[in-house]
């Protein structure tokens, strides 16, 4: 299944969070993290999310990317509610529609960098199909590794890479599945300004050329400003900034 049937192309709002509530239990206490978060992201939009540490940015990303379910509220993808879908469908959506860049990279230590980049495709295809298309997929992975500047490190294990290299590998892994929505949690957090700039350039290029919808969490104002639109998460709610940049809501 390459494209889930729930997707319809004529809805301008690509991804939408409706009144999301999420709280964590700490023994007796309920620690509310998100309290009615509403976000709309249009197709091909580049949205930055900023907020204090611990404000719930990562939590929001997890909810949007179907890694977690909200206590209250809904997540809609192209006019279809997706947070209450059966697990199999959610697994497939994660694999096909969303690309995830984790704040802490989360590469698989047993696999080489190339295999890490290929892992979403390995999950997508059955063993026969994978082996049949192996060379084609490998070329694709090498191409993406080149784009993030890692083509000289393909055989290395994650433990042999620097923080920045791991972050770029994580980005390459998120991109190889050709997602519709990229959820990037601090994709430039560990990069120097030059490399970070390169990555931002790549994201912009994908955003423009392939109409990739990007949600990016960052605490770097310079990086955030490069997005079309910035929202701030504070006290569990969204406060829109940069009203000027806001498109059709």
């Amino acid at each position, binding site marked *: 299944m390459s494209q889930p049937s729930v997707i319809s192309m004529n809805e301008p709002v690509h991804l939408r969070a409706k009144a999301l509530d999420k709280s964590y239990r700490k023994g007796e206490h309920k620690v509310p993290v998100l309290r009615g978060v509403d976000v709309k992201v249009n197709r091909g939009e580049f949205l930055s999310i900023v907020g204090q540490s611990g404000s719930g940015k990562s939590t929001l990303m997890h909810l949007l990317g179907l890694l977690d379910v909200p206590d209250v509220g809904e997540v809609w993808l192209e006019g279809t509610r997706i947070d209450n879908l059966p697990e199999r469908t959610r697994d497939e959506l*994660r694999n096909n529609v969303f690309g995830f860049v984790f704040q802490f990279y*989360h590469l698989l230590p047993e696999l080489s960098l190339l295999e890490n980049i290929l892992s979403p495709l390995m999950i997508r295809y059955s063993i026969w199909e994978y082996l049949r298309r192996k060379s084609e997929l490998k070329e694709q992975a090498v191409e993406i590794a080149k784009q993030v500047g890692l083509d000289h490190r393909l055989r290395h294990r994650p433990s042999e890479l620097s923080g920045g290299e791991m972050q770029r590998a994580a980005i390459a892994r998120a991109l190889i599945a050709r997602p519709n929505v990229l959820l990037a949690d601090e994709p430039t957090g560990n990069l120097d300004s030059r490399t970070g700039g390169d990555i931002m350039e790549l994201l912009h290029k994908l955003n423009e050329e392939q109409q990739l919808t990007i949600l990016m969490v960052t605490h770097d104002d310079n990086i955030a400003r490069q997005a079309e639109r910035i929202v701030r998460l504070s006290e569990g709610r969204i406060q829109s900034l940069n009203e000027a940049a806001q498109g059709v809501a």
Partner: protein
Amino acid sequence: MYKFLIANRYLRTRLIALASIISVTLGVATMIVVNSVMSGFSSQMKDRIHAILADVMIETTNTDGTPDPRQLMADVERLVGAEVEFMTPTVEIYGMISFDWGGQTVYRPVTLIGIDPNGKNHVSPFAGHMMSRQKIILDDELIRGRLRDPNEPLDWELTDDARATRKDWIEFENFRDQFDNQYGNFESPVSAPPELLSGVEAAPAIEPVSSFSLADPFDDGSSPEIQQVSGSSVDGSQENDSTANGSSANGSSISHERHERLDGTGGIQSFRDPFESTRIAEQINPMDPLPARIYVGAGLVSFPYKDKATGKTKMIYMVKPGQDVTLTTIKTGKPEPASFKATVVDFFKSGMSEYDSNLVFCNLEQLQLARGMLFSPDPSRPNEGLDWRDGAVTSLQLKLKNYNSAGDVVRKLRSGLSPHTGTFQVLTWEQKQGPLLEAVAMESAILNVLLFLIITVAGFGILAIFFMIVVEKTRDIGILKALGASSRGVMFIFLSYGLSLGIVGSGVGVVLGLLFVRYINQVEAFLSWFTGRKVFDETIYYFREIPTLVSPMMVFWVALGAIVIAVLASVLPARRAARLHPVQALRYE
């Protein structure tokens, strides 16, 4: 696809898991070795038992037997004739063997079995176990080759070796008697002290008869009743004397006992009546074996002897084929002893010590005569024209065309045999040796349970290590799930991991086990050399080599069982991995 890659990577990077399957390997190998040796032992043992016993035995509950074997055989023929290939009669009775060894008389309790050699040959492969048909090998050194072809049918003929032994033995006995007569104790050998005689109950009862028959053992006028007694009673009286002498143990009348040994033809005592002795000697050559001939279990007359000088253990035989021994048993009807002399034709060694140290096979008619189960048609020539069918037999041994029908045959015989020929017990050879075979089966069942428990323990090892790996890999599992891996896929990783461990573990175990079984005798030799003492002593176990029998089904089930255990052990960790919450797993440090 990722499932195989990840499982493969975990296999290659988590060598500790391999440690857990070493116990699976060892368990599987041990199980294969133990089972192969056990079934090797038990199949050898069954062969040996079967060499003595026939497929089905019909035994009278009464030691006097059934007086009408013709009727019994007709009944059997009528009931199960279609399934029976051959039947042969036997007479089985308790008795005692006594013989002279190193100046003293040795007594052994025995079970005497009267057989028809031709019939015995048909019902069980007994002939091959005769010592004359086997090579004697001691410490890889050929001591004596085969004297006869192992496939020759059974008969009561002496081998050339036995004839030579007999000649030497009789000459030696004659010489010793003369020597004893001249220089030995001159006390009257005939009258043993009365208190010694009185210890033997039957002695007074037989004494008159024996003296009567001694006067003229071949008297035509004697009634058959007396004659039938005479054939053995002469020996009986002497046996009583010799028993008395033997038990006196003070050597006072040993010379008398010597005389007894001399009378090769049964009942000729030269010192009593030299004229008669010569007269008879003209008719019967003392070198000829007696009419009663026996096969003796090797264990009855031999013992292992360790030569201190060479350190080698060899078997010492107290009697040799060709010599005469005295057999004592009971007559039918009243509990009276019956003794007769018999020539040892051969020894047998079935390998079952229960048989080899207990059984003496005798010609059927002679045993019937001795026990009063059969009367000679012509009393002047008591050993001619005898037919066991005219006497009584205690059992009938059947050889079946197909042993699978044994249960059926036994059932038909049990219900169908007419009670007027006697009451019978019908058993297959397996039932007859039931307790022994069951004990072996039980032993191997218990061993299997114990060894399988070892593999189960190994399974718990796998379980623990897998849990460890799942915990260690929690974050990776979260990543895989975040990238779209399904719970089933994650579960599959760990199940296939367990499966591969099981396959590798039991595969190596099977190879190790089979190699061990294949080279078990070399291993035994090495261990013997290494520890300096014999691990597997053939004189104890009766086996030259450790017998093994590999059953492919057993190997298959053991290997499968180990694989199933390894997979089962990975189910719980795999389920745990599958149920991990992706976000929680990602946050796991």
